């Protein structure tokens, strides 16, 4: 049974992925029987490329996606380099975790309110400094034509993620010795980290960087809130067309989804190719030695930007909290003129019910992912097949394929199976994205288990199952809970998968918040966002608190 774990896991992930891709690619070339598409052709593509604003949409997708990827890597590296010499930075780590736990749409909603012309930052300096008693006209700070606010909204999620991944990868690298050697050669700590540690870590965070790239190029919920809308990025266009009243829009919608797929895969390829000359140049630069004042300056500013970003992220979360209990709150007041808790009382019931649905889906998909990941890792530990590291990119595949590129096909397949709109379907589709994160989060601690304890248990006559239950699980309780919290947070944040698999019937905090994002009452959105952020946080809190409670009498396990 255990030996089947990797196969089961991969098929659970990859079968829907493949079926979804086929079910999206066929309509892109004109095949969808239900609406009379029985002949293969290129009409969908013609409509797509004739659509007004499509060039700009593609350009916007590429520009904002690549810029977000480059910046998030730069800022994350700057942050990690600064950890080596600036005492404030290690203290920012818990704030990073807070941003990481919050769903992308929560961050985007809060950030939008921060930077909009009538938002918090302008109110902070109005009217006493700016003289504005009305929001300024002609200040495009959200949905700006260049997509800069969209990029910033993406960075809020991606920089924490890459920092975390970099730290995780640091465990595999002799950081202390490398740094000592580099510093002895006269490099300041931050530059020492950039020149000697980062090159060793980069190959290990390559897949996370690609995941960031796929997300940046195809994020729908963040784009709906922050990106320009006339035209929006390609993924939003595809999402919109899939839901168009004109049913013939399915063909160009599928074509747009396939184009999105091509863009992401192409970008990954180009990035991979660009690594070769850049790596060569980088090595020349490192070997040259010296002090590199320009690089020092860039690293320092990147770290400052990362810190600023963390601050903005926290403010964004706070803003949504304030909105949820605001009464009348007009420009340029920094705080509401009156507080109203009525919304929580009035909407509390239905919204809490939605929160319940969200939590159930999150717990179920995280639990499923946990079982699968543990089974795969245990199987690997017992010598059942090659280590999963080699097929890691298979696990990563769902994170590298843009969601819009296969979810429509998944929806059609689910309808055929009579599963659409059921919790089972939503949990399954969430699991496609939750499993990779859970597995990645759990793999290193599991493989780093002290073999001597296992040997001791075996010497005392315990079989593999008993060792797993009585030795490995208790020792791994903390990483297991953290992996579960990661999975839960990923599930809570899912927008498109919930929309497509839930047939619109399964409502979560995220679908609700994105639906109402541009809505009539920011207080309701604030309330949803607060709950959206607090669910994963509660998950992390439990994960951190539980070992100490469970192991009150075993000091070394309670850490």
């Amino acid at each position, binding site marked *: 049974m255990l030996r089947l774990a990797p196969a089961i896991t991969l098929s659970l992930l990859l079968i829907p992925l493949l079926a979804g891709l086929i079910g999206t690619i066929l309509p892109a070339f004109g095949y969808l029987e239900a609406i009379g598409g029985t002949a293969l052709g290129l009409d969908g593509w013609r409509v797509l490329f004739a659509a007004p604003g499509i060039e*700009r949409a593609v350009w916007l997708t590429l520009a904002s996606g690549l810029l977000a990827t480059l910046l998030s890597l730069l800022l994350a590296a700057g942050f990690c380099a600064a950890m080596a010499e600036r005492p404030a930075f290690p203290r920012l780590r818990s704030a990073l975790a807070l941003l990481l736990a919050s769903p992308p749409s929560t961050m985007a909603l809060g950030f939008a309110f921060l930077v909009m012309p009538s938002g918090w930052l302008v109110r902070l300096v109005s009217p006493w400094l700016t003289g504005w008693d009305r929001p300024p006209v002609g200040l*495009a700070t959200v949905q700006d034509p260049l997509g800069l606010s969209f990029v910033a909204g993406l960075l809020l999620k991606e920089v924490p993620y890459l920092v975390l991944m970099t730290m995780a990868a640091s465990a595999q690298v002799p950081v202390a010795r490398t740094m000592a050697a580099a510093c002895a050669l006269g490099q300041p700590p931050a530059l020492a980290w950039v020149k000697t540690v980062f090159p060793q870590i980069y190959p290990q965070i390559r897949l996370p960087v690609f995941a960031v790239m796929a997300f940046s190029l195809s994020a729908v919920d963040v784009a709906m809130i922050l990106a320009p809308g*006339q035209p929006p990025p390609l993924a939003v266009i595809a999402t919109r067309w*899939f839901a168009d009243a004109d049913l013939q829009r399915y063909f160009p919608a599928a074509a747009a989804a396939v184009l999105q797929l091509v863009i992401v895969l192409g970008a990954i390829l180009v990035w991979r190719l660009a690594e070769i000359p850049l790596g060569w140049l980088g090595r020349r630069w490192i070997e040259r030695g010296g002090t590199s004042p320009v690089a020092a300056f860039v690293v320092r500013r990147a770290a400052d930007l990362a810190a600023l970003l963390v601050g903005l992220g926290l403010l964004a979360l706070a803003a949504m909290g304030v909105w949820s209990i605001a009464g009348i709150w007009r*420009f340029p007041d920094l705080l509401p003129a009156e507080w109203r808790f009525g919304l929580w009382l009035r909407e509390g019931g239905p919204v809490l019910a939605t929160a319940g649905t969200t939590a159930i889906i999150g717990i179920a998909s995280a639990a499923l992912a946990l079982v699968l990941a543990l089974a795969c890792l245990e199987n690997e530990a017992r010598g059942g097949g090659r280590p999963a590291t080699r097929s890691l990119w298979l696990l990563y595949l769902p994170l590298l394929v843009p969601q819009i590129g296969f979810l429509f096909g998944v929806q059609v397949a689910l309808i055929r199976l*009579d599963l659409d*709109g059921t919790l089972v379907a939503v949990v399954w589709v969430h699991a496609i994205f939750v499993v990779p994160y859970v597995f990645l989060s759990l793999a290193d601690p599991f493989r780093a288990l002290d073999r001597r304890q296992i040997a001791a248990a075996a010497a005392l006559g315990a079989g593999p199952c008993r060792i797993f239950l009585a030795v490995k699980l208790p020792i791994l309780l903390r990483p297991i809970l953290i992996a579960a919290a990661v999975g839960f947070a990923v599930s809570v944040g899912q927008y498109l998968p919930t929309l497509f698999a839930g047939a619109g019937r399964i409502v979560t905090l995220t679908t609700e918040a994105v639906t109402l*994002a541009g*809505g*009539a009452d920011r207080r309701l959105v604030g309330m949803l966002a607060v709950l959206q952020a607090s669910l994963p946080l509660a998950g992390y809190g439990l994960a951190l608190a539980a070992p100490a409670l469970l192991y009150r009498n075993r000091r070394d396990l309670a850490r």
Partner: protein
Amino acid sequence: MTSRRSPIVRHALGLAVALAALIGSPSGSQAREWNEVLAEARGQTVYFNAWAGDPQTNAFIAWVGEEAEERFGVEVEHVKLTDTAEAVARVLAEKSAGRDQGGSVDLVWINGANFLAMRQQDLLFGPFAQDLPNWRYVDTTNKPSNVIDFTVPTEGYESPWHMAQIVYVYDSARIAAYDLPRSMPAMLEWVKENPGRLTHPTVRDFLGATFLKQALYELAPDPAVLQEPATDATFAATVEPLWAWYDALRPHLWRGGREFPANGPAQRQLMSDGEIELYAAFNPAEAAVAIRLGTLPRTARVYVPDGGTIGNTSFVAIPYNAAHKEAAMVVADFLLSPEVQARAQDPEQLGNFTVLDLAKLDPAQQALFERPADAVAVPTNQEMGSMLLEPHPSWMTRIVEAWEQRYLP
């Protein structure tokens, strides 16, 4: 709001036969006894797919659900849509997968282009509207939009729910009544003096498109052509003055006319933020509702320009493959009951004008519709002016396409 597991209930054979007989029967000849429908409906759950951009409407649907559960044993699940087309697309996806029974959409809030699309694709169940007991109260003479939806006869395939009419919302503390722009050309002058303080929802939103249609009504050489399907010739001649006007207007709109709010209610938040000073809404009680909720100041008011504004009726329809047709009919009928209609018209709730003919009601029922004496910011019938009929859906489709061709970079 929550979703329970809803395994697709396979109809018992007997019911399937009855349904087949019903669908196969010549239209309206043998309407089932209402008692039979009520009995079938008990215990069913209606998946009511309705646009969810407006929190008040969502709350109202939730109330309807509670009442329906109590009175008829029918549960209502509000499936929240950002665009009605999502439901159309879903029914289509089901048809493509061959699910001709037990579909996931039972009832859909619909009108105009979406109705036409579903009718043309044979995606609707019916005719059923005339068979509803409360149909007898519906005003089919003075409110022609109850039976003619965007010039398309409803033929019993959708049942009216409430009326809507365009009004403009403003803050009387900021703009004096005599300064209000009372025509589209005046609107252009106003926005030149107040740059950035006017917007309209994105043209993909029905209210955004309606804003353009409203302008078209006022600027077209011959508005009568709007009641016919648009042809290349009539369209080109009719919209020319509209684009001339809009070219002049756009640079002065909020955010330079480069970005637009996602939907009508989103403008309310912009007004509350002070970013805009004037906006179009589809509900005469918009200001009253916003005041009650504390999103707009107590001085918010609405007005209708001199030439009148476009109005229409919102309907509910049942897809051909709905799993719970009986319960859907019960809900459609309940929405037409004088009590529910009166509650919907109450500015404390929705402020949506009723589709009923009050003359057909008994005095006790009529009393339900009396305006509260202290209703603030609710326009009188006189202030509402004349209601203009919706153009044929083809106008909306073409205007939106032409707008995108012209103004998307």
